[in-house]
């Protein structure tokens, strides 16, 4: 048996190679599989799948940041999102107070300022904090705060949210008087002003001041229990990540990578199970005929006439939607696809003399179905499977799009759903909408191509030679 299979496979592969579609499809498929296998390497945010809805995981990213490669196409580069670690840490003791000074260097060489600059640090116990921001032209912004608490808390200082007054005051000596009269700390773009050239346009028509910015954090710790750690400066850039971020600061690229395995799982599992069931169902109906066939046809017709999407919606609304429930539901409906064709094929094949010969030899029904009929249907089954995959993925995406998807995983459909719910299209965050759409389309294409190629080879009527 094995040798026959090997030579059959080889013959099949030779044919497959000739059909261009098939090669393209196969290559894409391999790419997708590699993505799933190399997930840890490819995803900057490894836990994207599990913590997609966990706000705390994404705190340090900018909101709605464009993809980094946008900078290649624009004359005015956006600031890249960064998280800065201290470039130097010095400790000194002044009496009973421990003084820790940390410096962060930020090389701003972009034409567009970031959307925010945040200093984040964890403090325990009595601590006094002083932050200084020293611009390349020497102008300095400083801020102080004393906190006292026994527990550990996070201190987050944001230019955009907390320090607008300071920035405003910084700009007063330089900015145009008329502008000063009109504007106030709430109305200006504080971060832009912070990074703007000192001049008349500092408040409104800002020009970026490129150079090295230094952020100095000085912490005075009152007692020995007090401590400071995990200090970092976040530059909420205009661009972040390979595919940017969404309104919840999530890295879309990681989301896409994480979603690949779900797409493959849904697609392959649904199509495999449903086609396997459908093929066996069709063969049995076609082979036995008579009242068995009639009954099976009626059952089949009932399933065929049920609309999948509404039922999926109802199911998802009633039960807690989980990806596995969805897969099961889809299998319950997709199996009807191949039945009619397989049944006719079975009807034809069973008229062949060799089936009669097998009966004459005393073969049981089971043997005839599994040994003589089904092997002839395997090619068709594979082709159908390949073509069902895109359908399954799109169904899941549709369900997710209306908000009934499985909230514990991230799928492409869900990314799209979030984008829609957040009005991404209106806001112009195209990098949130387009990539998942393309991904779905690509996966659909992959299997469609493979399916077409197999169909071309296996369906003699489609052969052009």
């Amino acid at each position, binding site marked *: 048996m094995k040798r026959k299979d090997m030579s059959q496979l080889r013959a099949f592969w030779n044919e497959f190679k000739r059909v261009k579609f098939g090669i393209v499809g196969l290559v894409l498929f391999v790419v997708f599989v590699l993505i799933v296998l190399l997930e840890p390497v490819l995803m900057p945010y490894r836990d994207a799948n599990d913590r997609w809805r966990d706000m705390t995981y994404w705190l340090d990213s900018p909101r709605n940041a464009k993809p980094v490669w946008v900078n290649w196409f624009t004359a005015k580069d956006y600031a890249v999102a960064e998280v800065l670690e201290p470039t130097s840490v010095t400790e000194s003791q002044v009496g009973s107070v421990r003084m820790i000074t940390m410096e962060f260097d930020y090389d701003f060489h972009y034409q567009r300022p970031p959307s925010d600059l945040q200093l984040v640090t964890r403090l325990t116990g009595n601590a006094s904090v002083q932050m200084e921001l020293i611009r390349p032209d020497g102008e300095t912004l400083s801020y102080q705060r004393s906190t006292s608490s026994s527990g550990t808390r996070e201190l987050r200082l944001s230019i955009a949210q907390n320090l607008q007054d300071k920035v405003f005051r910084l700009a007063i000596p330089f900015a145009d008087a008329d502008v000063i009269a009109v504007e106030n700390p709430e109305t200006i773009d504080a971060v832009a002003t912070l990074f703007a050239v000192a001049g008349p346009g500092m408040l409104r028509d800002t020009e970026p001041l490129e150079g090295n910015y230094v952020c100095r954090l000085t912490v005075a710790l009152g007692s020995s229990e007090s401590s400071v750690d995990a200090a970092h400066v976040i530059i909420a850039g205009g661009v972040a990540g390979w595919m940017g971020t969404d309104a919840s600061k999530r890295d879309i690229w990681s989301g896409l990578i994480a979603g690949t395995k779900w797409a493959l799982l849904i697609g392959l599992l649904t199509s495999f199970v449903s086609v396997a069931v459908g093929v066996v169902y069709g063969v049995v109906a076609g082979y036995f005929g008579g009242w068995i066939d009639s009954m099976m046809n009626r059952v089949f017709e009932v399933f065929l006439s049920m609309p999948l999407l509404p039922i999926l919606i109802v199911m998802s609304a009633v039960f807690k939607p989980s990806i596995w429930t969805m897969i099961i539901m889809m299998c319950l409906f997709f199996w009807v696809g191949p039945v009619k064709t397989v049944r006719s094929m079975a009807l034809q094949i069973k008229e062949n*003399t*060799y089936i*009669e*010969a*097998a009966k*004459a*030899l*005393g*073969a049981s029904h089971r043997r005839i179905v599994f040994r*003589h009929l089904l092997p002839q249907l395997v090619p068709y089954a594979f082709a159908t499977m390949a073509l069902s995959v895109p359908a399954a993925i799109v169904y899941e995406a549709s369900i997710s799009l209306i908000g009934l998807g499985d909230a514990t995983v991230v799928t492409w459909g869900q990314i799209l759903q979030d984008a829609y719910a957040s009005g991404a299209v209106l806001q112009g965050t195209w990098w949130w909408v387009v990539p998942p759409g393309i991904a779905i389309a690509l996966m659909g294409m992959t299997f469609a191509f493979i399916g077409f190629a197999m169909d071309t080879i296996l369906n003699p009527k489609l052969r052009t030679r």
Partner: protein
Amino acid sequence: MSEPILKVDNLKKWFPVKRSMRQVLNGERTEVKAVDGISFEVQKGEIFGLVGESGCGKTTTGKLIMKLLDSTDGKIYMEGEDVTEITGDALAAHRRKVQMIFQDPYASMNPRFKIMDVLMEPLVIHKVGETREEQETWAMKALEEVKLTPPEEFLSRHPHMLSGGQRQRAATARTLMLSPSIIVADEPVSMIDLSTRAEILHMMRQVQRELGLTYIYITHDLSTARYFTDRLAVMYLGRIVEMGNAGEVIDNTLHPYSKALIEAVCEPVSGKVNRIKEVPIKGEIPAATNIPSGCRFHPRCVYATPECWEQPEPELRDTGNGHMVACRRYEEILEKGDAAMTSEAEF
């Protein structure tokens, strides 16, 4: 005369046909009476021919003997036992004793199987053979028996890699795997080239002699039937009209239908080119749903008299030395020849 290996008694097979609503309400039944009461015996080691045109019921009879179809009426006796109603294990045992060679040597084997798989199938189905090696040895022996040598070479091939004659040999080998007693051969050489036909028939005869088999040979070709069979039965519209030794039936034909058949057959001899053949028969074969009354051949018979359609259907009568005929007037026809004709051949 020893016990016949196969005995068929008043065997019938009627196929129901779809009825219109009116017919259902009237309680009318239409049936295709494919086999309508045939009786014959086959001795062990004999080659028995079933001859007739298409639709006469010969293939259906073969399938009834194989138990691929259930009979509507009548009995089948195999080696003395009544096998008409058997099921289950008894049916499986029957299947091992009666095997079939089909008309189309290519269609009768699954094109995806290797010849090895084809030959092994009967063994697998009936769970014969302890080990794989044993089964393989039997397969090779069967191939040698049918002169497909060297057997190893053929075992690994697929059917489409064999010629028509080779395929039919392989099909024959398949029937031998279970050591049957009877082989039903349905037009085994009609789809094979002329120059190979005799070879296959020769092989079949050899196999028969070596293994002591009995053949039931179904064909429409009278010439081949004469060459190959020992005894034959001529069938018309589901009944046997004449039966006896092959040579005797063909040279001393008694039944008007057999006569017509024999007149119609072409012979490879010179001098017949410019002659219009005269076949003593009228009309066309009626539908098997509408069997004529009395002797079913009467509408086409050029010797028919009112007795033929008014009286019940004639049964087979022995005219001496095993030559049976189902015709009321056969003696008269034999005596008077053409003078016994009552109508012109419409031809």
